Each structure stands twice: as structure tokens, then as C-alpha cells.
């Protein structure tokens, strides 16, 4: 069975919410829609205070190149356009909506029938994705239409669908594959058409037997889709590692997947593409796992963006947050970020609300590096995290740059494997930020 060649770790899987069927999350009374829910520049609000909006109506227009449209996930009145503190406490431009009823745009097809035929041309598909504000739902929220606007001198050979879900705890991709296999396959074929490639590979780790079975059965009904079970290893869901696992190719330092002829999309994105292209439904919701060892019930929800984390906690946990909660994490335990403002709204990138217990959340006491090299063995990019640690601490940032600090994918394997509990990932993230600053200054 295939897997990627270099590094990797095996964290405890803890996928305890795999059997929780996806539920519809109830509408909140008020919602806050952030204008930058994606990688890049924020969208520009195109509604005014007091306007009535419908579900699916465009409220934030993408004006910059690296930007995506934002649509209203709710119907109601625009209460105000102001800045809002997001889940990490940072002020972001946002539109506040008082939710009234649930009135959808007429153009959206809300029937449960599955629409299989896609008559659009590749160019039209990309335009449609742009119009519908589709972004990558694997976590980086990269606008999908930009990924599909491939430079003329490059050619895609493989479409790879990332259904690895290598992060512990998360089960949203697992559930969407079990419940919406056909829609995903249609979505994959739409993407395949947009790229003009003969085959699409769906990579699934073999700790998910049910999705592998369901998807393999479904893929047989479609031409050009291959389900590829993969050996379990974190971070297989990282773009470059997945390419390596499936095709054996390696993305060179500083290059993009398209440079080795690959385009990678998350399985959740494939589902969103199906809804956007076939059902005319903009990206207004996502599947979100609410999980934690101490929670009485595990959930997978269809959550519309703009619901706050405290809304989700209030609904999912009838008894409230467990008293021994140490952290609430948006995303998985390896790459996710701890939420410091629970009144912050969810965004397009949110894939889970993970409640971690005090004992597990506590960071162990840091001691000195003993040069054991475990971080180097674990690094899936072949970097030297211990070296970055000391270089960044002493602010020798350019030297860190020459050792390819920007190649770090921030998977956290080094921190996970460090016996001295050094905050290696924190140091590397800081180093990357500072080095990017230096490069920007040099450009000017």
C-alpha cells in the first residue's frame, strides 16, 4: 500500500465521531459574516445597513486577484457593517445579519434530486466556481478558481482528491464520503473536465474502511475515477505528501503542485463544487465535526458560516462545555488553532470544534535540545527543525531562509516528536513570518 517517502508520525487517531450522521445546524438569531474567510485580500461588502438579504445572495464582492466572493448564508436584515473580532481576537471586516426566516435565492436548486449531467465548458466551470465563492475546504481556504486558472506553459496530468483526513479526531470528510458519495464523484468529474485530465485519484487512508468501500463502489459507476487506499501516516493529507504518495513525484522546493503536473483538491471541495455547478448553490456551509473525549455526544453538522463558536457549543453540548476543558480548537489537534474568543464566527475554513481536556491541552515543560535528530526524522519535508529553532531564537533569519525555512508545511511533526518539548513549530512559524517580511522588503 502506498504512502509518502520521507518522515511522518503516527499520532493517536481518536476518530470517535465517525458514526455521527450529519445533522442540520439550527439557524441562529444573529450572524456575523467575515469578509476574509479565504486566503488573500478581504472581499468588499456590496450591501448596506438595513438591506434585506436572502440565502445565497452576494454580499461581499471579490475585487482583488487573490480573493473570493462571499454570499449570505442567512436571510434577514443587514444590521451593520463593522469590524468584528474573529475567533482569535483579531479585528476583521464583517457584515452583521439579523436572521429572519429562511428565504433562499430562487436560482438555487434545493430539490434533493441528484443532477448528473454537466454541460458547461471548462472555462465556464471555472467562472462558475469564482462566482459561487468556492474555496479549498482542506483548511488553507485557497480560492479554487485561481487553482484552476493554470498558466498556459503548465499542464495538469493528475487530479488528486484529498480524502485522507489524516488529522486525529476529524470526521467531516469521512461522513461526507459515506453520505454524499455520488455527489462527490460528480463533483470530481466536473473538476476533471475543468482541468482536461483523463484520471482522478481519490486518496483515502485505510483507517476508513467504510468510505473506501462506499467510494470504490460509487467510482465504478463513473469513468476515470480511481480510489487509492493509502497506508496511515500523518501528514498524508498535506498536498505535497499526498502527491508523493499517489504519483511518486516530489514537488521541488519553492514550486507548486502544478509544476509536477498535479492539482490537489479536498473531498469537501469536490462536494462544494458539485453544489455550486449543478445546484447553483454558493459556498455558504460546511460540514463541521464537534468532538472531544469528554463530550457526552459527538456530532457532525452542516453549519452555515457566521454561526459563532459559542452557538455551536450551546447547541451541541446540552450540559455546556465540560468543566475540565483546557482548549477549544478550530481544526485538528495537529494543525488547528486554539480559539481564544468563543464569540467569534465560524468561517469557510472551519472543519471542526474540538474540545481538549485540561491535561492533554497543557504543554509539557520545555528543556534543552539534545541533538537527537528526531525532529529531522519526523519532518516530511526533509528540513532541520532544531536548526531553525536556534537560528530563529537568535534572529539569524536570512540564514534560516537559506536552509529553506519557507518549505515548512507547518504539520507539527517536529514538535510532536521532540523529547525536549521544544516549541519547534512556533519558532519555525515565527521564522517564516520574519523571513517573508525580509523578502518583501527586498522586493521593494
Amino acid at each position, binding site marked *: 500500500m502506498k504512502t509518502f517517502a520521507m518522515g511522518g508520525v503516527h499520532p493517536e487517531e481518536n476518530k470517535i465521531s465517525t458514526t455521527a450522521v450529519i445533522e442540520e445546524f439550527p439557524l441562529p438569531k444573529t450572524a456575523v459574516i467575515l469578509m476574509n474567510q479565504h486566503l488573500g485580500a478581504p472581499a468588499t461588502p456590496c450591501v448596506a445597513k438595513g438591506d434585506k438579504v436572502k440565502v445565497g445572495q452576494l454580499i461581499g464582492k471579490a475585487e482583488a486577484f487573490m480573493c473570493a466572493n462571499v454570499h449570505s448564508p442567512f436571510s434577514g436584515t443587514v444590521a451593520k457593517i463593522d469590524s468584528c*473580532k474573529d475567533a*482569535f*481576537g*483579531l*479585528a476583521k471586516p464583517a457584515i452583521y445579519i439579523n436572521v429572519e426566516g429562511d428565504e433562499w435565492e430562487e436560482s438555487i436548486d434545493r430539490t434533493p434530486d441528484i443532477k448528473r449531467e454537466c454541460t458547461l465548458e471548462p472555462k465556464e466551470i471555472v467562472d462558475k466556481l469564482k462566482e459561487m465563492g468556492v474555496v479549498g475546504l482542506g483548511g488553507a481556504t485557497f480560492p479554487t478558481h485561481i487553482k484552476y486558472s493554470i498558466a498556459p506553459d503548465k499542464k495538469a496530468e493528475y487530479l488528486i482528491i484529498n480524502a485522507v483526513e489524516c488529522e486525529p479526531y476529524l470526521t467531516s470528510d469521512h461522513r461526507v464520503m459515506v453520505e454524499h458519495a455520488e455527489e462527490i464523484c460528480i463533483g470530481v468529474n466536473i473538476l476533471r473536465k475543468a482541468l482536461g485530465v483523463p484520471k482522478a485519484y481519490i486518496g483515502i487512508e485505510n483507517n476508513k474502511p467504510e468510505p473506501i468501500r462506499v467510494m470504490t463502489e460509487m467510482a465504478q459507476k463513473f469513468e476515470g475515477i480511481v480510489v487509492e487506499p493509502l497506508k496511515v501516516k500523518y501528514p498524508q493529507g498535506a498536498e505535497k505528501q499526498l502527491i508523493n504518495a499517489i504519483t511518486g513525484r516530489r514537488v521541488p522546493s519553492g514550486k507548486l503542485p502544478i509544476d509536477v503536473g498535479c492539482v490537489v483538491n479536498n473531498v469537501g471541495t469536490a462536494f462544494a463544487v458539485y453544489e455550486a455547478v449543478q445546484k447553483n448553490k454558493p459556498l455558504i456551509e460546511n460540514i463541521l465535526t464537534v468532538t472531544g473525549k469528554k463530550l457526552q455526544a459527538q456530532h457532525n453538522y452542516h453549519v452555515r458560516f457566521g454561526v459563532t463558536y459559542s452557538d455551536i457549543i450551546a447547541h451541541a453540548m446540552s450540559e455546556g462545555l465540560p468543566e475540565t476543558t483546557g482548549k477549544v480548537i478550530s481544526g485538528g489537534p495537529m494543525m488547528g*488553532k486554539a480559539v*481564544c*474568543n468563543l464569540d467569534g464566527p465560524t468561517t469557510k475554513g472551519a472543519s471542526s470544534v474540538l474540545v481538549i481536556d485540561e491535561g492533554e491541552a*497543557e*504543554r509539557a515543560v520545555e528543556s534543552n535540545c539534545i541533538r537527537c535528530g528526531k525532529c529531522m526524522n519526523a519532518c516530511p519535508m526533509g528540513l532541520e527543525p532544531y536548526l531553525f529553532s536556534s537560528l530563529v*531564537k537568535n534572529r539569524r533569519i536570512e540564514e534560516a531562509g537559506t536552509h529553506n525555512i519557507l518549505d515548512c508545511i507547518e504539520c507539527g511533526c517536529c514538535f510532536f516528536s521532540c523529547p525536549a518539548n521544544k*516549541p519547534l513549530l*512556533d*519558532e519555525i*512559524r*515565527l521564522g517564516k*513570518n*520574519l523571513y517573508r517580511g525580509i523578502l518583501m522588503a527586498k522586493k521593494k
Partner: protein
Amino acid sequence: MTGIWSAVLVLGITGAIFAVVLYFVAQKFKVVEDPLIDEVAEALPGANCGGCGRAGCRAMAEAFVKQGNMEGLSCPAGGAEVAKKVAAILGCTPEEKEPEVAVVRCNGTCANAPAKTHYQGMQDCAFANSLYTGESGCSYGCLGLGNCARACQFDALSIDPETGLPVVNEDKCVACGACVKACPRGIIELRKKGMKNRRVYVACRNKEKGADARKSCSAACIGCGKCAKTCPFGAITVENNLAYIDFNVCKLCRKCVAECPTGAIHAVNFPPKVDRPAQPQPEQPVSQSQAAPVNDGSTTNA
């Protein structure tokens, strides 16, 4: 015996040959350096703090000698004393510069801005700043992880464990500006030392609207503008919900301090206020007033 003589002979001859070669090479590649540079470098403090914006004291000495006078160049660490010495070597008049000191413009003590979250990541302000707002929820306030204290070459800054804020030791601070550069939130400012070391400043950087600012810190500047209205000299401007006192205009009357509803304005090194003192008591010696300053929650030490 002959063994020793041959060794002495061989070594002596090779030594002589190398000496001749080295002499000519040294003549050919001689670097002519102004002897003044050495002299000026000797006069500089030699701490290599980088406060002047150059790579170190030697580089600064070269800049001094290259320019030939002291216009626009100054060693913040050395101050007036070093300036005099350098001026004597260069044969010019030293540039007059009022002494400055680092001032911490944040009021977010553990009591004023209680922690709402708990941070365990890398103990580095620059990293914490890129990650989130800070434990108190104020995205403008001090993170208290001590980048400024680490940047200080003169041991003048330390983090007070009680308040969680940096404390400037005014005697040691040479206003080199290293801490100003190190702070990712621009909290530290170099302000003029002022008459008798007295200063009035807004100890807050929060540009949020008043209500939002108060949510995270009870002593935040809420941009109400009362101070600006009270100031008889027009030294205070309010911009983006934040007041700023221009130290070139401020006459240290302290009317704004009394007016500020949140106590965001700090007055340091003033003698303790008696009921209604018309003027500072003339019989009170200056040294004593400096030794026992009014420290109304301020962040600086005398």
C-alpha cells in the same frame, strides 16, 4: 650538534625570506585608515548596541570621521558626554540633543486587563503577536513576553512579575531605541526626559472604540477627548480613538491627568500631591522628589 645548526640555519633563512616577502606584500596592500577612527572608536561606549542604526561602534566611528562633523549623527547610548569627547577629537561643536528615555505606553497590568485566555506557546512577543490578540484580549497591549527586555543591552528593562509589564530603569536607559524596534506592537516610545525627569504621557495604544477598549482593559484610553479639551497648550491630539501628548508642546501642568476618566494618562516623577499645591514646594529638594515619586500605577521607576 650539526643537527641543531642546520635547523637554526634553515629556519633562519626561511624566516628572513618570508620577512622580506611579507614586508613588500604589506607595503603593496597597505590599507590607509584614518587614525582618527581608532581614536573616535575608543571614545565611544563600545557596547555595540546598534542604537545609532549602524552595525556597531566601529562603524559609527567610521561614519563620524567620514563626515568630519557631528551633524545628524549621535550616539544615543553615550549621550552628551561622549558627544563632547568625539567633538573634541573631530574638532567641531557637539550637537545639542535633549536626553530621552524609553516609555512603556501600556496600562494593561494583570489587575487592569485580567487574562481571559492562557498562552503557553513560544515565549516571544513577535510570535504571539502574529498568532492572536494576547491574554487580555487587547490587540494593542503589551504581551509581556519580554522581547524588549531581551533586546536591551544596558539591563534597563525588565518584566515586572506583578504587573506583567516591562519596567524601565531610568538611570540605566540610554534611549538607544533597541526596545522600540523589538516591540512588535510599537508600545515603547522614546520621549524627552523633561524638566526634572518629569513626564506626562498616555499609557495606552488601543485604537478601538471606547466600549470595545474598555472590555479588555479598565485603564484603556477610550478616545473621549476630555484631555484634549482641557489642555491649555493644545499638546494633545485624539486620533483613531487614541489620545497622544506631544512632548515638545506639553508644559507638564497635569490638568489632563486629573481629567482622564480611565486613568490612562500617567504623570511620573512629580512630587506627591498635597491638597491644592499652587506650585511644587520650593523647599523640597529635587533629589528627594525623585527618590519618592508619585507612582500612580505608572510603569516607570525613578
